[in-house]
């Protein structure tokens, strides 16, 4: 059995943000994650938007956390060494008679305290985004809306937490909770953890965990969203995130540049029962491609390089569920959109509440700075030359599409929370995320993983156990 002051269940963006904020205080913290890496659930597959905050009803936790979370991103992205861009967003209106709704949204934004909002005519919008369709008759422009890499944000938060003393336990799902005196006994298949406080950051499973300890039941309705990601050659099709005003055609899908220069289309919205249902469907993908064309013209849909499904943890109460639900049990449940945007704020608010409850003081030496894997492709030739002189492995290109070197892959494997799987390397370095989608580099990344982690090639996994990539040697040992 291991004992900590605080156990955080779940290493998604909320769990990691909470852990990092908790690491500003004096208590000991462990994060338990059922998957093999951070950011494997809802945090991984979403629109990757840091919303401005005009969407949520004034007065809700969603509104409050979103606006605060958005404001925190400039400093946070610098501290964590992660890419973040306030590229701005348009909400486009496709029908004259729905223009009043656009104004409503604008006013809601003002009430929520969102800065940098303005209303544009169709013409004005098209001048800034020439690929908007002629049907666009008005737009709400949110200058503070941004884009981020959800994985890098989550990993950055997690590594920063780890640098400040938080311990991470992967492939360690929370099975059940038991009150033991003033503490919680947390059962996992590996070992038990004893903690004064438990934080529920279990994403689509957050109601299950909550309902183990509280009479006030929660119900998560999992909502599935399908996306298509397009090649970088399509990445400049729009310069800002283009949302459609919810209306006659339903909620609509967004068209957005991604922080890495691709173009993202999606999501669909479909309630599903299976909480692990990350299938894409022909009809869903078709829907994404068709709907994206309503507000943005000539989307080069032949440039799709991959498609994926994300799961949103929609709580039936329609707001985030935050705070102490049972003595020493704190919820961050029902965190759906704008969850990514709100993560930093949720972490901040929960950590403060928990610290107060456990009477924890601030640490003297909290180190806010974390360094990511260097990105050689983004450096000048002179910088790059210097890097390679220092470490020749930076000169050995492994992923030719994204131009990722062996040095960067080694940094990812030997990082604070190092990559152990092909997906782990991919998300930390982008090796395998390019046009060939890992066709060329996966055997070479597998070799590097096998060498560095002293594993047989047949033990190298894509992500979870059971996702081993090759089976056996063809010719004995």
């Amino acid at each position, binding site marked *: 059995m291991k004992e900590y002051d605080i156990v955080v269940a779940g290493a998604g963006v909320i769990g990691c943000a909470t852990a990092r904020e908790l690491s500003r205080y004096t208590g000991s913290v462990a994060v338990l994650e059922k998957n093999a890496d951070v950011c494997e659930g809802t945090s991984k597959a979403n629109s990757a938007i840091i919303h401005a905050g005009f969407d949520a009803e004034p007065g809700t936790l969603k509104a409050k956390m979103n606006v605060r979370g958005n404001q925190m991103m400039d400093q946070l992205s610098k501290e964590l060494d992660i890419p973040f861009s306030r590229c701005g967003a348009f909400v486009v209106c496709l029908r004259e008679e729905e223009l009043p709704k656009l104004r409503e949204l604008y006013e809601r934004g003002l009430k929520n305290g969102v800065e940098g909002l303005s209303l544009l005519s169709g013409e004005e919008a098209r001048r800034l985004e020439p690929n908007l369709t002629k049907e666009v008759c008005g737009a709400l422009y949110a200058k503070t809306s941004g884009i981020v890499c959800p994985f890098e944000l989550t990993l950055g938060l997690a590594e920063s937490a780890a640098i400040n003393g938080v311990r991470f336990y992967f492939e360690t799902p929370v099975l059940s909770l038991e009150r033991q005196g003033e503490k919680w006994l947390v059962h996992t298949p590996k070992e038990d953890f004893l903690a004064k406080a438990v934080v529920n950051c279990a994403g689509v499973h957050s109601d299950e965990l909550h309902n183990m300890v509280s009479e006030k039941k929660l119900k998560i309705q999992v909502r599935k969203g399908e996306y298509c990601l397009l090649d970088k050659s399509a990445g400049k099709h729009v310069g800002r995130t283009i949302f459609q005003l919810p209306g006659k055609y339903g909620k609509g899908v967004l068209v957005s540049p991604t922080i890495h220069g691709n173009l993202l289309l999606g999501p669909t919205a479909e309630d599903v029962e299976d909480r692990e249902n990350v299938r894409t469907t022909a009809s869903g993908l078709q829907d994404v491609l068709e709907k994206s064309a309503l507000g943005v013209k000539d989307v080069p849909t032949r440039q799709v390089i991959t498609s994926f499904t994300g799961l949103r943890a929609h709580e039936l109460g329609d707001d985030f569920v935050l705070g102490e639900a049972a003595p020493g049990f704190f919820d961050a449940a029902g965190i759906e959109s704008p969850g990514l945007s709100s993560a930093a704020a949720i972490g901040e608010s929960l950590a403060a509440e928990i610290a107060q409850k456990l009477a924890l003081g601030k640490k003297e030496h909290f180190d806010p700075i974390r360094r990511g894997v260097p990105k050689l492709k983004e450096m000048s030739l002179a910088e790059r030359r210097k890097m390679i002189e220092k470490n020749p492995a930076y000169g050995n290109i492994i992923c030719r599409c994204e131009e990722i070197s062996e040095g960067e892959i080694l940094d990812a494997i030997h990082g604070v929370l190092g990559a152990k799987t092909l997906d782990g390397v991919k998300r930390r370095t982008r090796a395998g995320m390019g046009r060939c989608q890992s066709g060329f580099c996966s055997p070479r990344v597998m070799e590097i993983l096998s060498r560095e982690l002293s594993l047989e090639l047949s033990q190298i996994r894509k992500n979870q156990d059971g996702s081993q990539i090759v089976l056996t*040697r*063809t*010719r*004995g040992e």
Partner: protein
Amino acid sequence: MPIIELTCISCPLGCPLKVETDETGNVKGVTGNTCKRGEEYGKKEVSAPVRTVTSTVRLTGGAAPVVSVRTKTDIPKEKIFACMAEIRKASAAAPVHIGDVILDNIADTGVALVATANVEKRA
């Protein structure tokens, strides 16, 4: 007379062949071929089809874990799997060079199994 239709595999052209045989299976004629090799292929394919087998064998002490091999010439088609069974058991020690004999009479075909790549010793 029975006519057997085949696609020639002697070269990438893939000519559609018609092989005419008599009642006892003797080839009377081949048509549809563009070259002499096609005629030979047609005759052989209906009487005693042959193939080249390519694969890899285990390599010890080499810069690679396996080395590619081939049967030096064609072998009877029905011996392909017997041939593979021996290939699976065979091994070679680095360095290996193109043409090096790995097995000299694979699956009793009288045909040698030879290396098709150069692999030096592990550095």
